[in-house]
């Protein structure tokens, strides 16, 4: 079993993409500190919000990958009931989780810092809807594409989704702030 094999290269190149995504978000945070980080409770909300996209899409990609390897899902039927069910479930999960996240951040900020900040509830829900409209179909398409090209989507999708999820989330948060 060679150490620097195809898997090593796949994980490494995917991670390189991932760190640049993370750094882009970090730079955006450093630039927009006054707009984002200075909102009371924003640091409570932000990690969970950034992570959620990877969690939901990561599990979706992993389920689809396992299904493809087990041949329960086939590339010939991309609109099968299993896939449709997975997509609907992922959208529902995203809505419920962003709402919970907003409530948690709102209540913690109120309880610990005595600050009432309703934007902490509205912001993640609206930004979550915007971000998932982009992220979930992207996840499905890329998992299929990678499997079709003979790659193991498990090696690539994890880092790609956390990174693209971060970038899409920050974009959605800033867009929602502009809308609000």
């Amino acid at each position, binding site marked *: 079993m060679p150490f620097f094999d195809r898997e*090593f290269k796949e994980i490494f190149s995917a991670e390189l993409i991932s760190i640049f995504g993370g750094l882009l978000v970090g730079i955006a945070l450093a630039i927009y500190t006054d707009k984002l980080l200075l909102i009371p409770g*924003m640091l409570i909300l932000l990690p*969970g919000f950034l992570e959620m996209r990877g*969690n939901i899409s*990561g599990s979706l990609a992993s389920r689809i990958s396992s299904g493809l390897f087990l041949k329960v899902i086939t590339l010939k039927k991309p609109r099968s009931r299993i896939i449709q*069910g997975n997509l609907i479930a992922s959208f529902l999960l995203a809505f419920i989780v962003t709402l919970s996240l907003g409530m948690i951040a709102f209540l913690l900020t109120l309880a*610990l810092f005595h600050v009432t900040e309703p934007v902490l509830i509205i912001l993640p829900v609206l930004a979550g809807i915007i971000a998932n409209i982009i992220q979930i179909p992207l996840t499905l398409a890329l998992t299929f594409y990678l499997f079709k090209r003979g790659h193991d989507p498990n090696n690539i999708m994890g880092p790609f989704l956390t990174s693209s999820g971060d970038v899409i989330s920050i974009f959605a948060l800033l867009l929602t702030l502009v809308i609000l």
Partner: protein
Amino acid sequence: MRKLTHLLQKIRKLKRSQHHHLLHQVHTKHKISRRTLFYIKEYSSEQKVISTVLKESIKILILASLISSLGGLALENIKQAFISIIPLVILLPALNDMIGSYGSIFSAKFSTLLHEGRLNRNWQHNPELKKLFLQVLVIASITTFITTSIALGISWFTKHQLSLGFILKIFLISFLDVLFFISLLVLIAIFAGFYVYRKKEDPNNFLIPITTSIADLGNMLVLAGLVLLFF
């Protein structure tokens, strides 16, 4: 063939929690793997997929959000000090991503190994698992070095004061943080993965959210602690 299709239709109608003799019968007679039958039973109809995914994921995702929020709370408490250290503000999402994504890669590949029956109780001596862990550790060290260097470089370009001591502190914080949490997440993924799999649930739905949220919580608690300690 018609008989097999009929049997598979019957499996699709089984309740998720039900351990039916039909699964064993189809497995032995028609040579369909247990894992495939597990997927047919778990995610067979659209309605069943939605309810299964929601049921298995919702609790863990809300728990993950709560854990991440607690991590954020640690940084919220030292917000002014934290946002004044620009390299750490730039590094925070990248560190969270790195730790979380290495946890996700390990969890996803560990789940696949479990589903394919390539792991047993004697996992400590499994060469595939050992190799995967070492690969993740080596890649993590290289990417941590690159990320920290870039964050420091960007800070330097934005005229942030960088002394040698400050640079070393940032490197030390990054390496301690990443290598410690990757080792911890691998252990959590293995023990929790076996536990969930034994309960006939899909480890994919559980391991990824829990490893990423522990990564977030731990990362931010450690960062908050190290900021207080070093700065």
